[in-house]
């Protein structure tokens, strides 16, 4: 049997079996889910060769599945993170109700994402896309918390995305008479000179999943309210599906239109490029500003995900070799570190009962491995050398400064990433540092099946920091597939087009040497006289904090910053959408009055619609 079908079949069977076993035992069900995803991954990475395609008919339509180097990048994220997350969820979902449904949807999400990567035609792409949306919807409302607000918001925005995507697909079919993605690209469907609507509609569809402003409002609560083991996938991999689509479309727009900008004076791709880049940067800034005001670690991470996706959008929108490489690198690395961080949040939630940073503190002594993962992932998230996060950030900045003339964009991105230090610190401090809370006195380290995926991810972050080349390799191949020529890379040297470079090996060497020397010196010096004391033994003007008194500073953490940045906090996209929502409601109230019950009126509507379609025929359909 063909490996494509086999992989999907294994995953679907895994979904079905784990659903059936969910009633019996959550551990068995989780193990089945893990095994199916893991075996599918093994199958994928061993059996499938790049650039293999199969075609089969579905009725009259010719469908095509296949895997190219570009999809391979995302398959790395989806399957790698998927396996680890399913391993993680065995313990995480233990002792929870309705685990069957959870694992069913969980595996289904993975299946649909693998399907999206396989799809080389719009029909299967759209079908898998919708499966992904629906199964993730069921996971978002899994905790049955604020279903109305979160679920409805997610559904509305997903629907906006889906309909715009569907419209674009219909228009492609109408204009070029094909459903195959490669044919559409060959025909120039994403080309601005031919039709501006198709790429923009597709972009809207993808931007919803990539949580780009102004379509991001569903994300914070959806990320923070789903079970953490799913959020690992949700934020780490599923958002990357939006990135995949955006990269696919954007790169084509810019490469195809590079030479004939003058044809469209009104709406040149440069404007789209700049608009998208600025939207990405503003997303990053605003999400960062909100992230650092959160008291709940999960929400903080959710906002931070949006901010990171903002950087990726910037990279994709700039569209040069280095920036797209940076964006794809960031996409993978973001999958790794955000996956690790959500796993950390989940571990804390499972062990300590809550991730509210005002209620939990000082877990470092209880959960050292979890803290280690959090530390590594946070360093990567903050973009501090020498981990993978820095590599992506560096390339993004260099591409912005050297290759595009958007210097003010750099400042915006830089502002966002500097402010990110604040919430990075807040996350580590809030959960792990400070004095121990009495309520969390008996907290234990998370079980080993949760620790292992976390540690694997942290090791990956270190490796990608020292040898980013192992990720550059698939990325470069993927980029060549979607239309870049000659993508060069080095194993551990980062370079820009001005010829300046950073050698990560030297960075690592220096840091490791200094670290070892300083650590030995500081540890051995006065070893006998050094004593480790509890966090209650602090100098608070001679006052002694009692057992139940927790002096950790947690409330209004960044108040001075908030005061300084007060004008930026005044507006919220959420409010704007709410206003639009109430506006729409009154509009619908008005439209209700159209239904008069008179047949004549309806006839007029039908005629009016036909007339409208005829008028717009030329714009929507080319031939």
């Amino acid at each position, binding site marked *: 049997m063909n490996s494509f079908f086999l992989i999907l079949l294994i995953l679907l069977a895994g979904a079905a079996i784990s659903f059936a076993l969910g009633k019996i035992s959550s551990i068995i069900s989780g193990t089945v889910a893990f095994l199916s995803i893991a075996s599918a991954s093994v199958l994928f990475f061993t059996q499938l060769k790049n650039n293999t395609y199969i075609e089969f008919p579905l009725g009259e339509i010719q469908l095509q599945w296949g895997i190219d180097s570009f999809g391979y990048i995302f398959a790395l994220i989806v399957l790698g993170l998927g396996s680890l997350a399913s391993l993680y969820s065995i313990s995480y979902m233990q002792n929870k109700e309705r685990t069957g449904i959870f694992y069913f949807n969980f595996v289904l999400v993975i299946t649909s994402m693998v399907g999206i990567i396989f799809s080389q035609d719009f029909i299967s792409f759209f079908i898998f896309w919708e499966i992904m949306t629906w199964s993730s919807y069921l996971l978002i409302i899994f905790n049955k918390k604020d279903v109305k607000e979160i679920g409805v918001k997610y559904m509305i925005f997903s629907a906006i995305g889906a309909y715009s995507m569907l419209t674009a697909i219909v228009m492609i079919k109408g204009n070029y008479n094909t459903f195959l993605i490669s044919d559409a690209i060959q025909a120039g469907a994403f080309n601005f000179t031919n039709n501006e609507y198709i790429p923009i509609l597709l972009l809207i569809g993808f931007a919803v999943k990539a949580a780009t402003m102004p379509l991001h409002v569903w994300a914070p609560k959806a990320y923070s309210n789903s079970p953490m083991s799913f959020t690992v996938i949700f934020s780490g991999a599923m958002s990357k599906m939006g990135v995949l689509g955006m990269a696919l479309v954007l790169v084509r727009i810019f490469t195809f239109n590079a030479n004939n900008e003058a044809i469209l004076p009104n709406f040149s791709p440069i404007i789209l490029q700049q608009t998208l880049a600025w939207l990405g940067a503003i997303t990053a800034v605003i999400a960062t500003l909100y992230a650092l005001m959160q008291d709940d670690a999960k929400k903080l991470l959710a906002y931070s995900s949006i901010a990171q996706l903002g950087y990726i959008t910037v990279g994709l929108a700039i569209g040069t070799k280095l920036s797209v490489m940076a964006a794809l690198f960031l996409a993978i690395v973001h999958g790794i570190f955000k996956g690790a961080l959500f796993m950390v949040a989940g571990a804390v939630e499972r062990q300590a009962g809550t991730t509210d940073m005002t209620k939990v503190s000082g877990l470092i002594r209880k959960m050292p491995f979890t803290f280690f993962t959090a530390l590594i992932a946070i360093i990567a998230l903050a973009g501090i050398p020498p981990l993978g996060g820095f590599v992506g950030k560096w390339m993004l900045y260099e591409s912005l400064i050297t290759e595009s003339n958007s210097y003010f964009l750099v400042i915006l991105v830089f502002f966002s990433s500097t402010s990110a230090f604040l919430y990075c610190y807040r996350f580590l401090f809030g959960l792990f540092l400070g004095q121990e809370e009495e309520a969390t006195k008996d907290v234990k380290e998370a079980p080993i099946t949760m620790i292992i995926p976390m540690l694997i991810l942290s090791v990956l972050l270190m490796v990608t920091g020292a040898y980013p080349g192992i990720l550059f390799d698939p990325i470069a191949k993927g980029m060549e597939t979607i239309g870049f020529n000659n993508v060069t890379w080095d194993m551990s040297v980062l370079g820009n087009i001005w010829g300046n470079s950073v050698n990560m090996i030297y960075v690592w060497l220096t840091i490791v040497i200094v670290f070892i020397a300083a650590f030995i010196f500081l540890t051995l010096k006065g070893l006998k*006289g050094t*004593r480790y004391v*509890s966090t209650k*033994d602090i*100098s608070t*003007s*001679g*006052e*002694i904090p*009692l057992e139940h008194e927790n002096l950790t500073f947690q409330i209004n953490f960044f108040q001075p910053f908030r005061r300084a940045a007060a004008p930026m906090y005044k507006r919220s996209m959420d409010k704007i959408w709410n206003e639009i929502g109430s506006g729409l409601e009154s509009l619908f109230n008005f439209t209700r009055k159209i239904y008069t019950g008179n047949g004549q009126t309806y006839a007029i509507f039908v005629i009016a619609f036909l007339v409208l379609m005829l008028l717009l025929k030329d714009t929507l359909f080319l031939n």
Partner: protein
Amino acid sequence: MTITENNIKQPIGEYIQNWARKHSLFVLAYGTGCGAIEIPPTMTSRYDAERFGIRGAATPRQADVLLITGYLATKSLKRVIRVYEQMQDPKYVIAFGSCTINGGMYYDSYNTINALDRYIPVDVYINGCMPRPEAVISGFVELQKQIASGNAYNATKYKENLEWYRENQKKIIKNWRMPDYNW
């Protein structure tokens, strides 16, 4: 290898360390008594204690010298003990003003202690009510002499005779809620 100065023999490493300790005194001023008002002139332009290497420290972790300025109420004694124990060795105590010596004008008060050295070891007493900044500086110079001669080992004495000190302390602080130390 030893070095001899003022008829005192010290190993050279010790000598250098003591020299550094002597010339770099970080002072934690416990300023609850009226003597606290004498500290600003001591530290600022007029008397300039910094030329002796004396400077203020904000927390007991960084401090070398605990300067107790004036009377100690029983309530503040608890804090002083706590602060003293939080300081890192080698540490010194300078008690300042008559009240720390014999209670001064508060000798018959129901809530001020009379003899500080019963509770924590005192290296240098500066008498007077209040001692002027010159006296304070002379106290510091006396302490520097002690440090240089290697005789300022009162902190060790405190650890050795901890039981005796604890007994005295607990007589005042009946509800003993101090953490136990593992030195």
